[in-house]
Structure formats: C-alpha cells, structure tokens
C-alpha cells in the first residue's frame, strides 16, 4: 500500500507526535507514505470561511499533485481530511465546480484519487486482525475514551464511520487489549480555536469533555486530530488554575502513539514524552514503558 502523505501544518509543528507515530505505524503495517511535493495549506478555518471557491481550490491543488502520481492521499489531521474530502466530493459531483477549481488552481484535478484519514488507513484498511498480529504488547485493560471530535466522521453520508457513534478507534483500542469506555461525548466540539479567541467559552467545552471522560472511568483519552489533542492536552493546566476544584491529570494520546507502543516501539520514539500531561505513569501502570 502506498499513499501520498499530506502532513498539513500541524504535523510539522504542534502535532509533531502524530507525525512521528504515524510514520512508525505506517512502517510496521507496510504502508508506504510519500509526502506530497510542494504541498500548500488545506485552508482549514480561514480559507473556507472567507470564500467557498477558495475553500475548495486550496485542497484541490494538493489532490491534483497526488493525482499526477496516481496516489490516494492520507491526511492524518481531521481538519485537513475534512477539507480535502469536501473538495473531492464537490469536484466529483459537479462538472461546473471541477472546471472552476481547475481555472483557479491552474491544475487539473479529475477526482480520480481521493483522501483518507489515518484512522481509515491504519485501522479500517489494515484490519483489526493485522493490528492484533503485529501487537507485541497489550494495553492490559487500560480504560480509554475514544474521542473523534466533530470533523472526522462528518458530514453524514461522506464520513467512513457512524456520525453519532463512531467505533473505529474503539475497535482499535479493544483489539490492542484496552477497554474502550462507552461514553456519549465521542463527537463533541473541543472548542477548536475558541480557547484562544474566547477563552472561557472554549475552556468550558474542553472541561465538559474531560469531565465526561473521567466520569465514564477513562484513564486516558485517545484522539485522531491534532487540534483536539492540543485542546485536551495543553488546556488541562489552564483549567486546573482557572476552575475551582479542577484537577485534571488525564493523559491524552494519538491513536497512532498507542498503536506504535503496542507494536513494540519505545514510547520516547512515538512522541509521548512531548505531551503536556504526563503519560509515563499510566504507561508504567500497564507495563508499556
């Protein structure tokens, strides 16, 4: 299996652990990742809210480059994935849009290749059996809340999993020997950029998710989106300072980190040491160090 790899801005900066662990998992699963040459911003947040056509054209340029190489794209970031998928569907379903996009990008994108999220490639396509057979360590029943966020499985009819109760990450956790807790906030909003722009509005959303995960008995949260990860991981300290009685110490992982560790990689290599919330104690508890 070979994919054009689209890291987007996050995986080279705030979400570098996602990049590190994705590369490791890809290596173990035999998925070859070739970074799209000269890729540009996917346009998330700013692009599509400014101009609809711009929102379609920015990801279409990246897809056009991948199409030249004949490769489907793997985009680990949920936002990149969502933007590219939107563009892919728009171009595939309308000749007029296709022509407009081609005019703006000055490149042909025919819709022959599409985009997949890392969760789709590493879990759905690789298959739970392959994951089980590659695992050399067991998560030992660690209670984990799988958190998908708002973009990964939406909109209805386009996503790769159920939009209200997705299960792909839960299945992965179970396959690796963890216990996926049943909780109702799998697809809640993490606040995206609100914790920066309107702090208390955004922080409340993060607070609600963390509280719900804890009350469901989770010892850790696993996610597949760099922005969700950042909000859930980095804001815990903020919340502990600003909210009475808040004392969160809930480790947050990328699903690829847990996969890589279970596949026998040293935790340090996967990026878990870079997190704001300490991950070592929960990993130690389950002999995953």
């Amino acid at each position, binding site marked *: 299996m070979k994919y054009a790899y689209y890291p987007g801005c996050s995986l080279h900066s705030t979400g570098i652990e996602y990049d590190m662990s994705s590369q490791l998992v890809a290596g173990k699963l035999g998925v070859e990742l070739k970074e799209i040459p000269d890729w540009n911003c996917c346009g998330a947040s700013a692009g599509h809210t400014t101009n609809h056509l711009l929102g379609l054209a920015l990801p279409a340029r990246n897809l056009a480059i991948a199409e030249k190489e004949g490769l489907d794209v793997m985009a680990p970031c949920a936002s990149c994935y969502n933007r590219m998928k939107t563009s892919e569907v728009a171009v595939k379903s309308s000749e007029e849009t296709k022509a407009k996009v081609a005019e703006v990008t000055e490149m042909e994108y025919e819709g022959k290749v599409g985009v997949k999220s890392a969760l789709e490639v590493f879990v759905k396509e690789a298959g739970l059996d392959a994951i089980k057979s590659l695992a050399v360590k067991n998560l030992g029943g660690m209670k984990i809340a799988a958190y998908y966020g708002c973009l990964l499985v939406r909109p209805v009819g386009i996503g790769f999993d159920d*939009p*209200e*109760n997705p299960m792909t990450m839960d299945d992965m956790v179970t396959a690796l020997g963890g216990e996926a807790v049943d909780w*109702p*906030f799998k697809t809640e909003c993490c606040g995206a950029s609100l914790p920066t722009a309107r702090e208390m509005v955004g922080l409340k959303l993060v607070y609600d998710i963390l509280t719900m995960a804890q*009350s469901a008995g989770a010892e850790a949260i696993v996610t597949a989106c760099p922005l969700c990860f950042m909000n859930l991981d980095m804001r815990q300290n903020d919340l502990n300072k600003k909210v009475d009685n808040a004392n969160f110490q809930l480790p947050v992982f990328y699903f690829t980190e847990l996969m890589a560790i279970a596949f026998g990689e040293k935790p340090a290599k996967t990026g878990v040491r870079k997190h704001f919330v300490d991950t070592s104690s929960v990993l130690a508890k389950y002999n995953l160090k």
Partner: protein
Amino acid sequence: MRRTGVFVCHCGSNIAGTVDVERVAKEAAKFPNVVFATDYKYMCSEPGQQVIKDAIKEHNLDRVVVASCSPRMHEPTFRRCLESAGMNPYLFEMANIREHCSWVHPDKEKGTIKSIDLVRKAAAKVVKDEPLQKSSIGITKRALVIGGGIAGIQVALDIADAGFPVTIVEKEPTIGGRMAQIDKTFPTLDCSACILTPKMVDASQHPNIEILSYSEVEKVEGYVGNFDITIRKKARSVDMSKCTGCGTCWEKCPTKVDSEFDMQLGKRKAIYTPFPQAVPNKPVIDRVNCTKFRTGKCGICQKVCPTGAVDYEQQDELITEKYGAIVVATGFNQFDHSVYGEYGYGKYPDVITGLHFERLINASGPTMGKIKRPSDHKIPETVVFIKCVGSRDEAKGKSYCSRTCCMYTAKHATLVHEKIPGSKSYIFYMDVRTPGKGYEEFYKRTAEEYEAQYIRGRVSKVYQKGDKLVVRGEDSLIGRPVEIEADMVVLANAMVAREDAGDLARTLGISYDKDNFFTEAHPKLRPVETHTAGVFLAGACQGPKDIPDSVAQAGAAASKAIGLLSKTQMESDAIVSNVDESRCSGCMICKGICPYKAIDAKLITERVGGKMAERQVAAVNKSLCQGCGACTVACRAGCLNLLGFTNEQILAEVEAVCL
C-alpha cells in the same frame, strides 16, 4: 365510409393553454372518415355534452372521438352521452391530450402537433370500433374486513347493520388494534377503552359479524362481487368451541414473556390474552416461548383447563370463502427510531415512544397507571417530549407529517401535569399542527393552563449523565442552544405502514405508495376506493390518521361496500376477450393464463368435408372476463381478441401515427 365526429376540449386553460385546440379541430376535420370537428371550452360539461348530442343528430354521426383528458375519469361520461343520443357507447374513442400532452409539454407548437397525432390515432381506431354489449354477473352479498382495529370494527358494524354478513380477519389474538393500547383520547380526554370496548362487544355479539382472530388472509382470487378468499386460521392451541375464557390457564402458566401489548414494559404468560377486555376472550399459546413446545415438558395449562380446551396438536387451518367486497383496515406501526443516533439509537431505556407512554399511563398497564420510568421505576419530575421523530425528515425518516403527534404529545403533557404534581414538561417542536375540531383549543390549554413549555427547535443530542438524560437542542425562536436535564424523554414517533403492507397489497392486487401506504383511487373524489374494484380502504393503512378520521373513513368505506352489496346483479364491462372459433385449435393454453377462470373448453359442431364433426375450442365467460388481455398474447394462433382493443384496432392506431 364512416361518419366520425371529433370534439376537442379546451379544459379551460388546462389544454388550451399549451395546445392550439382550434388548429387541432381544423386538422382533424381533414382526417379520413371525419365529417365534423369542433372545439369547446368544457366538453364534459352539460352544454359540452349537448354539443356532441346535437352534432350526432345534425351530421348523422356513427363514430365519436373526444380529445380531452385521461379516460379514467370521463370515458364513462361520454359513453353515457352517446347512449342518450341513441348510439352504442362503444363506438367512441378518447384522445388524451391533457395528461399525455398539455400538462407535460410546455412548447405550444410541439404540443399542438402531438395533439393532432393523438387525435389522428383515435380517429383511425374509432372507425374499426364495433358495437359492444354489456353483460351482468351475480354478487356474493358478504363482506370481508381485514384488520380488527377501530376502523375495521366500525366498517364491520356499519355493513352488518345494513343487513349483510361480515367477517373480520384479525392477525392478533384479539380485535381492538392500536386504540386498545391507548389510554386517553384527544381532545376530550375520554378513556379510550371505555369507548372502544363496547364496540368490540357489539361486534362480537352482532348476528351478522363473524370474528376470525389470530387469522390472516393467505390468498385472494376472483374479482369484484365474487372474491374467493383463503384465510389461514393460525393454530391457537386452544379449542375455541370448548374454551370458556375462565383464565385458569394463564393464571397457572409458569412462563413469563415480555408483553407486546404493553410495548415490552410488562409481562404476559406464554398462554395469554393480550389484555383483560380481549374479544374473543380466549387465549392463544405463544409456541415460540411456551415450555411445552420448547422442551416437551410442562403441560400445566392442559392439566388445569376445566373444559379440556387446550390442544397442543392443533394445526393451522386454511378455509376458502366467497365474498363480494373487501375492506382493508390494517392500520399502522410506529417508526423505529433506532436510526436516530442523536437520541441514542434506542439504547437509553428512559427514552421511550408515545405508545410506551400510553401503556405507562394506563390503569391496566404495567405500572397500574403510575408514570414510572422504565430504568429504575422512579417517578419522573422533568419530562421532555420530542416531536417529529421520523416525520418530516427526508434524511432519516419519512417526508410526510404524521398528523396525530402534535395532538397526542399535547395530551401526554397534560396527563403528566395532572398525574405528577410539581412536574414540568418541555416539548420540542417544528410546527404545532392542530387541524381538527377542538384541537387548537386543546393545545392552547396544554401550553397555557398546564404549563407545558413549547420550545421551537430540534434536539441535537440526548445523552445519559448520572441518572438524568441531558437533552440538548436549539430554541430557534431565541436563537440559542438549550440544555434540559430530564428524567424521561418521550419521542413522538411517526406513524408508518405495517411492514407487511406491501405483501398484502400484492395479495389483493391494490397499489401502494412509496411509504407502503395503500393508495386510494382518487385523493379527493374517491378516497376510500382502490383501483381494484370491490376493494375499499379504511383507517391508517391508507395514511396517518387519528381516531375521528379513521372512524369517518370507516363509515365511508362501509357505505361504498353496502352500495356494492345491495345490488343483485352487477353490470360487467363489454370490453372482454373473444374467441375466433374458426381458427381456435382448442389447445387451451389461454385457460391456464386467465387469472379470473373465465376461459373453459367447449365442443362445437361443424361441417367438415360434407360431414358434421365435433371439435374442442376455447370459450370465454363474458361475465367473469375482466378484459386484462393476458390470453390474447398467449394465444399462438392469435385467434383471441380483446373487444375494443382488437389487433386490427391497435394496428390502425399504429399505422395512423407511424406511417
């Protein structure tokens, strides 16, 4: 040389708006055999028909073509018109230049040309028309009602009161249907059972009504006035003639099963009647769950039965009976809301449906009429109602409005207020629709006096938080998200067709719509008839309906059935199949094809080489033939012809249009 008159209708602007009717008439006048052609604003009107009658006299017409609408509505009108002018009514053709032309083509020039062609076709056929004569058939003066809910019971009572025998076939062990499950009825809040059970008893005691409960229609043959219907009487495992309904068996039965009647909220026994007022009040054994049938052991019910009525060996029984009319009143089901992830895919026990709520509030229900939520039997203080679950939702449910939910939700909120002091109800709605006598007033009272809080908006998520259900939605009037911590959530699920409605429709040969509701013959003018003669509709099997509407429709369906049954003879159409005996080889392939058993072999005597000889040929019973034409295409020699649509007539049409 025939003398044909052509009459082109404007149908107001329906046709004349997109077809140059005057030009059509002018062109028609040039067709062979046409001696007169004219146009008129409304051909079907009294003066319009007079135009035809006058022209028949003045121009000595012997053939008539009317170019107007579909023959479905007005062919009988014009045939009567010809008859009253002294002509045979079958020397007539209709060119459909409305549904087939003006309504579907916006281009006037092209529409006009097509209309001329359609008239040319009809004019070519009409000269080949021959005078035909109607025949008549006897009628079996007996009606079958499928479904024993309130609609079916009302139909049966009305027909029986008119003096005709009626059979109700009900697939459940008792009649009563959905109305029996309901606690109170809007807008008067009278007890559903109190007004239903007397009717059930009336039906069971009426000398003209026979109730076949725990039975289903298996096969329908025949035609209007003479249906042959095969009914499967499912094995009850109880001999109805011996059972007295004393109840000892179900008291002693050790096996408890979730009760379907109580929406799985309560229990019943394996030998059971669904509810205390069941009619007939005689039990059935649920063989799937009965210990005797599962393991061979037990047999308690047989031991305790004082009359020896329990019969484990009983088999399904098939009976075939003759009926003149059929009324379908099979009712509805509730929409399955497990497709709604936002309401928890049906996994939260305290998210219930309207029918569950009816059972919870019913004095003979599983909680003796106390509103207790299913999970922990706590009495809820805050109840959230969500309307339009599956209704008006093309993405996940049905496109239509279920009509009853606004009212029954208002009723539920009223009952919560009355039964639980200090409680609070919230109702999420899209629109409040209350078209019915006293309905709007009832809703107003719910909102104003009973303090139910109506919130205009959809619910985006229901989730469990501790022992509460958090309902998150939008109040679209103030444009803000709202969150309510509720103890129980009641969904107003859409009314949908029975899951086997399509099968029954195929058995009966009636049509059904995209949502599996049975289709009426005309949405306004023939609301209780189907396109199949002799089959009528009543109640929610035709579309969502409340009790008053179901009863009204039942009365209408009954009067149509009575109208049919009150005749002794029924005229059958003259458009029937005809055998050319000189060419028929008597192979009788047609006999097997005919769905109406209208073809049989007969012997004819003819002169062959100077001697008389006997030979077998096919013969059509003109009373039984329904003119479907199946035999005409099956005949290898082409010696069967459908009168009115003979090969010669059809070819004349083809030639007129294509050559």
